């Protein structure tokens, strides 16, 4: 196994910038690891080896010439396959999109990472059109959880979380409409940031629900997440939802004194259905932050309203294809989208008005609290193919229930940093650190302090008996499938 791929992005960039390690060697190590492990995990749907090697040469030449190669020099990254990558077809998890021409340009965030010296190695599996929480894609297969490949990685950015957890790349990008960064980050035991709505540009990504879509990074350490987030920030007139705000860098805040925060742990709806494991994870963070219990009124209704809006907006977006070629959709996605577009308009108008009210309720809490805590998911990763799970005394849908605690928060655009709990000999669980709009910096400071105290941290998977038999015979990553 390539030791370089066990380094953090920060360490790789420091080595490359300092001339102690070549970006070309880092990229070669990344492709070796992808080749070794991807067949057992199914994180990547395509790789871009030639492009990566050229980018690595550029970075190495910059170092040689004494030019600044960027803060993420030589760091391999990959993106959920709804991000445009110039010269590659943007799949968005569908076979319908696979018929489209290759993207003519990169998504804004791909450009920003490459400008910072990071090196794109490929695109990652997801639920079809981002409508799911498990990444069990009927067209491209399920992405496996690196901590137990018989279990789901979470979704819809399952490839993005699993790739980082397994060390295929130190960082990745995903999107989050109702929890699609936070759920897989929690189930795969890595960090995931869903920033404030409008903070990061979505230009060059395939939309799912315009009024709810966010994009953000994954990483295995708070510092790596901060470095990545910092280069992603900045206004973008090409995304009408992207706020015209200057970047507010967070990496430089990490070494400041441990913040004294007024923390609240959300009760009621956010505890009622949670498994003992989810509550235990939550309590570990709450205890460390001296969090006081607090209620967010209307959370259940907020989740329901987000659920209805999602189906309606998503269904509306795909209505032309639902009319012409419904049989080409994943059947489960198709039926949810169609049901969405058949909803009465009065439901959707009420959902939007309720959304405004619920945002005001949440903002009121931030007069008394700086950070709110909630479980990321109600339970840990379930076996692939398992449709239901016991929860709160009844059998519930796994796909729908994984977003119970994330949907009310993204509904109102609040920034959330999902952190992985240190849980020896147990499947990963995550906790949401939630702040007032535009206050990502505080979340990073709190997460960094918790990480330094050993409460949270990305656990390295014991890679991985169930994966090993598939490794030797699989050529993926050596150019055999989707490699350009």
């Amino acid at each position, binding site marked *: 196994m390539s030791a370089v791929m066990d380094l953090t992005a920060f360490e790789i960039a420091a080595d490359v910038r300092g001339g102690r390690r070549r970006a070309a060697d880092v990229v070669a190590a990344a492709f070796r690891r992808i080749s070794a492990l991807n067949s057992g995990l199914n994180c990547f749907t395509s790789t871009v080896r030639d492009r990566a090697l050229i980018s690595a040469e550029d970075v190495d030449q910059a170092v040689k010439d004494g030019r600044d190669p960027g803060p993420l020099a030589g760091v391999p990254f990959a993106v959920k396959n709804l991000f445009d990558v110039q010269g590659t077809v943007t799949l968005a998890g569908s076979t319908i999109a696979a018929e489209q021409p290759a993207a003519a340009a990169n998504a804004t965030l791909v450009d920003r990472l490459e400008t910072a010296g990071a090196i794109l190695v490929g695109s990652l599996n997801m639920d079809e059109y981002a409508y799911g929480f498990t990444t069990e894609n009927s067209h491209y297969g399920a992405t496996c959880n690196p901590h137990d490949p018989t279990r789901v990685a979470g979704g819809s950015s399952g490839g993005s979380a699993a790739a980082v957890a397994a060390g295929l790349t130190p960082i990745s990008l995903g999107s989050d409409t109702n929890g699609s960064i936070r759920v897989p980050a929690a189930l795969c035991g890595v960090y995931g940031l869903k920033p*404030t*709505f*409008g903070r990061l540009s979505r230009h060059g990504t395939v939309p799912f629900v315009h*009024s709810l879509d966010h994009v953000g990074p994954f990483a295995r350490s708070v510092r790596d997440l901060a470095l990545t987030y910092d280069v992603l920030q900045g206004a973008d007139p090409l995304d009408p*939802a992207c*706020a015209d705000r200057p970047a507010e860098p967070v990496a430089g805040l990490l070494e400041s004194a441990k913040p004294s925060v007024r923390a609240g742990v959300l009760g009621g709806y956010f505890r009622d259905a949670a498994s003992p494991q989810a509550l235990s994870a939550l309590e570990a963070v709450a205890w460390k932050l001296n969090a006081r219990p607090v209620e967010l009124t*209307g959370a*259940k*209704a*907020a*989740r*329901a*309203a987000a*659920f*209805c809006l999602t*189906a309606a907006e998503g269904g509306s977006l795909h*209505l032309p294809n*639902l*009319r012409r070629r*419904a049989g080409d959709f994943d*059947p*489960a996605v*198709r*039926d*949810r989208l*169609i*049901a*969405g*577009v*058949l*909803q009465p308009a*009065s*439901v959707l108008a*009420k*959902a*939007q*008005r*309720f*959304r*405004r*009210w619920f*945002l005001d309720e949440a903002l009121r809490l931030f007069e008394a609290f700086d950070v709110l805590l909630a479980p990321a998911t109600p339970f840990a990763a379930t076996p692939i193919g398992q449709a239901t799970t016991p929860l709160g005394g009844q059998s519930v849908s796994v796909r*729908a229930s994984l977003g119970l605690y994330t949907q009310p928060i993204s509904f109102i*655009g609040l920034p959330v940093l999902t952190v992985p709990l240190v849980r020896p000999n147990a499947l990963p669980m995550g906790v949401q650190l939630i702040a007032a*709009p*535009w206050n990502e910096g505080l979340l990073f400071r709190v997460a960094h302090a918790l990480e330094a105290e050993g409460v949270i941290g990305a656990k390295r998977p014991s890679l991985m008996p169930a994966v090993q038999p598939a490794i030797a015979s699989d050529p993926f990553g050596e150019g055999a499938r989707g490699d350009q």
Partner: protein
Amino acid sequence: MSEDPIAAFVKEAAALQGLVLDDDSLLGVVTNTRILRAMAADFIDWPLPADLDPAALLRL
């Protein structure tokens, strides 16, 4: 199925939208319509101020 009011609604509404549903899809859409209606019941009667304006929703 044809006597089920939800199924009848789905068939008629889908046809008006230009959507063609086979039997499997009809079953799936009916199931999801029931779920959405149950969800909507959680907020449709939520008392809101009469002058609440959602227009500024995304001005965070």
